């Protein structure tokens, strides 16, 4: 406790250096938080998409009701289909009006019943059967296009993997930068206290006695920076939640679970402690040789 008090005293004596160290840490953890939201959010979207075994087939305009009925019958006979839902051109227009155009007259005028294709949503018992069903449906010549969740999942996976790679690179660069800034701030303080350190050593101080206040200083910068970064990111996420919910519609990702947010802050604080210890240790090492 006494060592922590000493560190706080040291920090108060050089407030601008402390601010620099805290800001760079906060920036690092803000970035970590934002990427964590993106990566975990897209993982949840992928999971949701994977758990929805659905193939949507779009019919060409020349498809007759008999064609559609025949298709439904043959699909039912496979024993793999749990249910089907026919969406007529009229239904499609209704969906467009309520979900997309949202009674915007201009948007509503753009699309008419003829523009939209009729479609059939096919649900399977097992996600693994989607591929077989999609291939079967494609063989019919009155089918214009087939979309199934695996396509969406693959697209999402590619995007997520790209974002994750960029995220890791950015985070690594920021972590290295924050270690250097903290080393500079703490190293400057160590050099200012060089005489004091020499005197302490002559008075039988162990290296750890000298090192501890600086190590605590690093931990304090790290933890405060991590808290600020996390708070800013979380407030931003909560603020954006109503907007994001309208985009994600039925996908149950938001609002973010409090347990996830708590887990994230604990993880970030642990990383911050590690960074603080590493930076201060490196800064003091030179002077204790």
């Amino acid at each position, binding site marked *: 406790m*006494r060592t922590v008090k000493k560190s706080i005293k040291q920090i108060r004596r050089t407030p601008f250096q402390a601010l620099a160290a805290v800001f760079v840490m906060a920036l690092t953890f803000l970035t970590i938080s934002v990427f964590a939201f993106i990566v975990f959010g897209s993982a949840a979207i992928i999971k949701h998409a994977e758990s929805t075994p659905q193939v949507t087939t779009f019919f060409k305009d020349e498809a007759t009701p008999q064609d559609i009925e025949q298709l439904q019958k043959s699909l039912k006979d496979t024993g793999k289909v749990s249910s089907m839902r026919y969406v007529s051109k009229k239904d499609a227009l209704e969906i467009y009006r309520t979900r997309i155009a949202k009674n915007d007259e201009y948007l509503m005028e753009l699309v008419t019943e003829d523009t939209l294709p009729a479609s059939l949503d096919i649900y399977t018992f097992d996600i693994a059967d989607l591929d077989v069903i999609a291939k079967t449906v494609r063989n019919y010549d009155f089918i214009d296009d087939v979309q199934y969740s695996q396509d969406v999942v693959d697209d999402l996976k590619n995007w997520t993997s790209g974002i994750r790679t960029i995220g890791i690179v950015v985070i690594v660069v920021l972590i290295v930068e924050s270690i250097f800034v903290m080393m500079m701030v703490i190293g400057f303080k160590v050099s200012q206290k060089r005489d004091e350190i020499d005197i*302490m050593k002559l*008075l*039988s101080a162990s290296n750890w006695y000298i090192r501890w206040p600086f190590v605590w200083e690093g931990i304090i910068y790290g933890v405060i920076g991590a808290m600020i970064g996390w708070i800013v990111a979380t407030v931003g996420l909560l603020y954006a939640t109503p907007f994001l919910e309208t985009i994600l519609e039925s996908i149950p990702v938001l609002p973010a679970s409090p347990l996830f947010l708590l887990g994230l802050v604990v993880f970030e604080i642990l990383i911050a402690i590690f960074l603080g210890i590493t930076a201060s240790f490196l800064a003091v090492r030179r002077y204790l040789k």
Partner: protein
Amino acid sequence: MIRLGNVSKKFPTGNSALSDVTFSIDKGEFVFVVGPSGSGKTTLFRLFIREYIPTEGTIHIGEWDIGNLSDKYIPLLRKKIGVVFQDLKLLRDRTILENVMLPLDVVGMDDEEAEKKAIDILDQVSILDHKDKFPVQLSGGELQRAAIARALVFSPEILIADEPTGNLDATTSWEIVKLLHDINKTGTTVIMATHNTDIINSLAKRVLVLDKGKLVADEKKTPKEHKKD
């Protein structure tokens, strides 16, 4: 208590600070170390506290062979030997009380206990009234007393004072010498470096004379010799 056998200290620059020095000091002795600047007095003291390692020869403090002492025993050695440094080495941004408490803090003593001990010692060296002042607010003599107080906090067996009267007027110098003399009377071995011949001649104490790193005389002054001088 202290035994030096053919001790030499050479620096990497090639300078030789001490050359083939041999002597011993018994427990409870009061010894003056004299010699011009650069004669090796401060180097000798730094060897005692293992700030330096001898290039040749052996130094024993009690049972410990200082040249071969493991690093983990250095803090213990420095508790055994209190040092009043020539430049005092008081921390400017701490009060006198905090300066005296520093060695106790270093060994992890509880704040309350450390403060009590530091206050006792400040009282012993008669500067308790200045405990809350900063070094810059004290006179030369008072600063010496503060440095002596800090050197005494562990009740060391040996007290080394490196030119404690160097920048003081005659009256204050005598007060400091009297204080060291009183400390010696309690059984602490006192080794004091000085240039002040008046002090040396007035006290019937052993004198080690260093010149250019060599021990050129080891004599005990008597009142009779004092008269001759």
